[in-house]
């Protein structure tokens, strides 16, 4: 109780009311597909970590957009995640150490937390030519992944690149790029999207902290709570589809009226993700709301299977 009281005091000092915190936890609990009876337990995960769960974050062939997406989390805020909820042991984009000190940090964390840390991977792994197309400290991405991933309690692939290979794996896939599961032959939890919604990463991590296990996943490794339904089925423009009210030209009257983007190439019917419900950037918007067709960016091989993007499926 005392701890909880202190936690709310601290939140309030930071300008977060107990009410808005509970609202967030309720939202998160709902996005995770849990009943409202779990709300207090979700709150607890954020309130009183005895030891913050260690995270080793690996950046391979990527654009850092998934790290950026993680930093857009706005409940918990990124500073809460970094200072109070997680222990980010290794992350090249934010860590203060550089050069050989980074390797010391990585090895120290691997030794200290072997079998206990969450490994988040961002980016694909080059497999052609012994993985020679990307290196850090002279070691290939493939060598680093082989060293780190099997020692993790769980490997979470954040983004379509680490999940399924992503853009560099698009035809002709010159470097033989693959997702982590494929490159290492191991089971990973995949949170695809280009980039994914940070809500879905936080939901997955909370599930792990809450139950000591990862959320239920589909055969593509995606948590059901986020990727269980198609974008089309959750789309607020769905009724226009049913009524055959389509946009056929950008800049048209139909576009201004918010008609269905199916004929402009929208891939919502083939794409499984919670974008229309969770929306991005603290629920601000999502591509279809901005009048642009869905690209299908959380589906495997979408750069080949979903292109040309502006042609009807």
């Amino acid at each position, binding site marked *: 109780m005392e701890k909880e009281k202190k936690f709310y005091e601290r939140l309030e000092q930071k300008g977060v009311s107990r009410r808005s915190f509970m609202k967030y936890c309720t939202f998160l609990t709902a996005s995770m597909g849990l009943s409202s009876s779990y709300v207090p337990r979700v709150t607890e995960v954020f309130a009183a970590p005895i030891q913050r769960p260690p995270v080793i974050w690996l950046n391979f062939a990527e654009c850092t957009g998934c790290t950026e997406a993680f930093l857009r989390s706005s409940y918990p805020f990124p500073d809460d995640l*970094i*200072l109070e909820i997680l222990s980010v042991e290794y992350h090249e984009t934010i860590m203060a*150490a550089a050069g050989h000190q980074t390797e010391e940090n990585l090895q120290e964390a691997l030794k200290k937390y072997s079998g206990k840390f969450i490994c988040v991977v961002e980016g694909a792994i080059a497999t052609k030519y012994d993985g*020679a197309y990307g290196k*850090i400290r002279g070691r290939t991405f493939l060598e680093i992944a082989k060293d780190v991933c099997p020692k993790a309690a769980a490997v979470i692939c954040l983004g379509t690149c680490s999940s399924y290979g992503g853009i560099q794996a698009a035809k002709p896939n010159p470097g033989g790029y693959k997702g982590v599961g494929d490159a290492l032959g191991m089971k990973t939890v995949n949170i695809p999207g280009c980039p994914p919604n940070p809500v879905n990463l936080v939901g997955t991590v909370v599930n792990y902290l809450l139950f000591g296990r990862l959320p239920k996943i589909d055969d593509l490794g995606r948590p059901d709570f986020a990727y269980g339904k198609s974008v089309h089925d959750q789309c607020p423009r769905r009724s226009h589809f049913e009524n055959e009210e389509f946009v056929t030209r950008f*800049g048209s009257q139909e576009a201004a009226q918010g008609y269905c983007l199916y004929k402009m190439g929208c891939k919502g019917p083939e794409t499984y993700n919670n974008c229309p419900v969770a929306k991005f*950037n603290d629920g601000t918007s999502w591509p279809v709301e*901005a009048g642009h067709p869905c690209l299908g960016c959380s589906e495997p091989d979408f750069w080949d299977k979903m292109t040309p*993007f502006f042609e009807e499926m």
Partner: protein
Amino acid sequence: MGKKITIDPVTRIEGHLRIEVEVEGGKVKNAWSSGQMFRGIEMILQGRDPRDAPLFTQRSCGVCTYVHYLSSIRAVEAAVGVKIPDNARILRNLLHAAQYQHDHIVHFYHLHALDWVDIVSAVTKADPVKTAALADTVSNAPLGGASYYKQVQQRLKTFVDSGQLGPINNAYWGHPAYKLPPEANLMAASHYIEALRLQAKAARMHAIFGGKNPHLQSLVVGGITSVRDILTPDRIAEFQHIWKVTQDFVRNVYIPDILAVASFYKDWGGIGGTDNFLAWGDFPETEKEPDSNFMPGGVIMKRNLKGIKMPNQEKVAEDVTRAWYEDGTAKHPSKGETKPQHGDYSPEKGRYSWIKAPRYEEEACEVGPLARTLIAYAKGKKEIKETVDNVLKTLDIPADALFSTLGRTAARAIETLVVGNAMEGWINQLVGNIKKGDTKTCQSWKMPDKAMGYGLNDVPRGALGHWIEIENKKIKNYQYVVPSTWNLGPKCGKGKPGPVEEALIGTPIADPKRPLEVLRTVHSFDPCIACAVHVIDPDSNEVYKIRVT
């Protein structure tokens, strides 16, 4: 031969970068900048629908997430010959300026500040009462007071006492080159945390008219799709509100912090300079480009501000003599070819990077905030001139001190202020158009069988150009020359170093095992390596070997 120091990976940047310096007599004598990863987006683009190019090239970088999207759209638009409506021009400027605000704040606080700010000193030595007093004298920051700084310090102390040091573990804390008093360290550390939260909010500007951030999704060839968001007054008001919160932070926290920190590091006004500068210019305020660009383009050679010229994209050529590509003459990007040839890492005389070496009239040029600020200053642009003169006066340093690491970091803040301020007028223009009944955001066009085009922009990290060739309505060739290729590129056939390499020469090194000073200059360029290297060899099966030094 002096002692070699290798920093691999350079952290707190986008991408995989290796920097090597040779130190003699406590100073850097020679330097090598090496890109360590390649993906191949230009090759992947060949044969695809030109309308898809902007979405592919956008994935070069999720940090500067808007910029390739914009330049690529403009390249395709130039090729197909479509003029975008006024509202699309304004919205694109607003999204681009929001990228400046976001990028520059994140760069200073989260990627660069820890080169100047000692977190351990903030936690263990700072007095919150004195910190509050210091903050009151240097800024109008909305959060402050002794209790605020006490609480931030306690928060950091709890973090450190947990023994789980995470991102601040094993850094260069206590290094003799850290010069800030403990209270300034605590003030800056507090703002690091505030900025972490602010940037998440600032990114919502992109989500409003772009659907999401990173990787906005609302530009199309011919305009922008978020027409419903401009037809909803709430949306514009929301944008305006977040713009104001962000710009208030720039005015009341970022600028004062830059001045406060810089006042302890004036010696860095004489370290890390380069000689030549290039900007294409950006933010067209009417359909007349480049004349109406709010940030003007220009070329300055040998620091001669009076000899400033207008830039011409035909004078760009990429040299590959010292990069891992097949030999060939330096070529203009529209004729560019990419034939990688893997080899050993041979910085002394051979090849040592995947980044090509772009040259303007055979000279390496620095691009980015300092280049833009100097060019605008030389052209007498009022807003820039006033702000620059103010900064020089406040710090009591001569104009020459701009050619430095300090000048580069200050210029980034200066242009954030100036470009951010301009956004208000652009929002009003948009509202004015809508009031008049002009709500057009897209122009129709037809794909030609054959065409060529290019799009030039000046994006947060510097001059960016995309070149496209269309044949049979498909992409025949695609090349882009990005800011970090200009800044982080290797030496050329004539042995002239790239800008970062040039800037590092002469840098004092106090402790070769902890080369903090090298990081300061490298970070001041805000490197983005995934952008800089985006080419790959589809045929070769040679293995790229690296000699670990």
